[in-house]
């Protein structure tokens, strides 16, 4: 509670937090609140502009190429986009933190090998990895999350390793080791709690980027199947209509923009509060 109060001292990030909460609530319950069935097609009333009225019913944000209601799809799309954002960050975080802690605690061979792995990972185009995953596991939402997770763990690994390198020589860690604590125990009990603030901050900023990455993958035809509405997929579907039906791509674009700005505002604030040093690590 106290933390929230401190957070609320900055006005803009508080607005950001509010938006993030609204989007999350929408992601959870939005599917029951939509004005239309987000899947219901009617190609005879396609590309209706915002505020278009059909049969006495209002399409607040217009309709897309197959006549589906854009507002309804945005509301349901929030769920998938948020899921992609948070779940892929979770995957990245688990992989990155685990490898980073091992590399930071053991600075010898394993540690160096892990650091080399981060350089290798950076050099492999995400397209290659993503096609390999899709070829083996098939195209699906969960595999998309896996791809995004596996291409973004490097940042965690580097930051966590740097933290661990300084932490492992602290007295309490040395003491624990002298008392015979096992390595996993030291990592989990003594190091993990201390790297968590950094992890929280990276995560909050990475969620926003993951939502953008998802739209890039959709653009390249490697996103989730088009009937599942995601914000990124909706922009990508709408790009051929930008010249004559701007709202198809602009509405999801706006949704992403507002949400990403809000998440970034929250992330920045968290960074300032939790760990002022961390800004050196961003990439």
């Amino acid at each position: 509670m106290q933390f929230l109060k401190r957070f609320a001292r900055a006005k803009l990030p508080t607005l950001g937090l509010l938006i993030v909460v609204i989007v999350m609530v929408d992601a959870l319950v939005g599917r029951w609140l939509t004005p239309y069935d987000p899947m219901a097609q009617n190609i005879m009333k396609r590309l209706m502009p915002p505020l278009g009225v059909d049969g006495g019913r209002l399409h607040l944000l217009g309709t897309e190429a197959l006549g589906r209601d854009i507002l309804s799809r945005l509301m349901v799309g929030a769920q998938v986009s948020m899921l992609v954002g948070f779940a892929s960050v979770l995957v990245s975080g688990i992989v990155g933190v685990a490898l980073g802690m091992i590399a930071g605690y053991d600075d010898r061979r394993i540690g160096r090998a892990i650091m080399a792995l981060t350089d290798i990972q950076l050099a492999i185009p995400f397209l290659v990895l993503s096609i390999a995953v899709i070829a083996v596991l098939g195209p699906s939402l969960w595999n998309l999350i896996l791809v995004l997770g596996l291409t973004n763990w490097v940042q965690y690994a580097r930051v966590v390793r740097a933290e661990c390198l300084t932490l492992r020589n602290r007295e309490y860690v040395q003491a624990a080791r002298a008392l015979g604590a096992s390595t996993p125990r030291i990592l989990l009990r003594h190091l993990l709690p201390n790297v968590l603030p950094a992890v929280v901050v990276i995560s909050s900023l990475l969620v926003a980027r993951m939502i953008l990455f998802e739209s890039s993958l959709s653009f390249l035809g490697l996103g989730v199947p088009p009937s599942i509405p995601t914000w990124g997929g909706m922009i990508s579907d709408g790009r051929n209509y930008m010249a004559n039906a701007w709202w198809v791509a602009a509405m999801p674009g706006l949704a992403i923009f507002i949400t990403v700005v809000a998440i970034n505002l929250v992330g920045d604030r968290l960074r300032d509060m939790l760990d002022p040093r961390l800004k050196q690590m961003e990439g």
Partner: protein
Amino acid sequence: MLGYLLSRLLYAIGVVFGVSVAVFFLIRIGGDPSALFLPPDATLADIARFRTEMGFDRPLSAQYLDFMGRALHGDLGQSLRYQEPALRLVLERVPATLQLSSVALLLALLVSVPLAITGAVYRGSALDRTGLVISMVGESFPSFWLSIMLILILSQHFHMLPASGNSGWQSLIMPAISLAAYSTAIITRLLRSSMIEVLQSDYIRTARGKGLASGLVIFKHALRNAAIPTVTVLGLQIGALLGGAVITEQIFAYPGIGRLAIQAISNRDFTVVQAFVMFTAIVIVVINLIVDACYALLDPRLRKG
């Protein structure tokens, strides 16, 4: 110092080797090019014959040994689609990409550094807010969306700039803007907050107290210290620029390596993908080496860490 450089070099070779192994197997997991390359009315027998001729039916381990053996002699193989040496295809497109990325990086620095400095010095001013808005907008749009918007507005509507190709400096403007957007945002935010922190530190206050001209203090002392974290990020950003170039080059029909790569990947032109990725790996490793050297120049204390 020589020992240090040598160990870094060995490390770099290790990374490039690791990349070559990873990409060799990953791209082959994604399917083989025979059916893609032959016309749709090819028969199954045609496809099988082609696969055997090309050696795609051999065990992956044997294919890898073959590839490695030739790679050690500098031969990265023939492109299937272009029927030309893969390395040549990549290298002949490097200058165009280098041109675009350096213009984008320059643009990012030209916009972000002044914005960050004035923002830090005059915190809360209109300029500071402009900088914040730019950085927030820059990192919150998908880059392909920004690219298409630029084309629609500046080329299609106002006919101000060519929408595609590489013919003179005008054709670099839009791709450079869309490529630089994200980097500009990151550098502005980062440099601004480092500057604010440094400007509040004791030694800057002392310097100012001693009556040194404030311009001198800002440029000589504060910027130098604030630049260290920025250089780190710049190193990572060059990797991001190369990655971002894939989509940007595709949209603006820019003849660089990103466009070659995306087509090679979707056509499973294995040798070209390998040559591209190994080239990128070398660039990233070399840039990391340069970044390390910059650290040493900017802050001698860091040399030990």
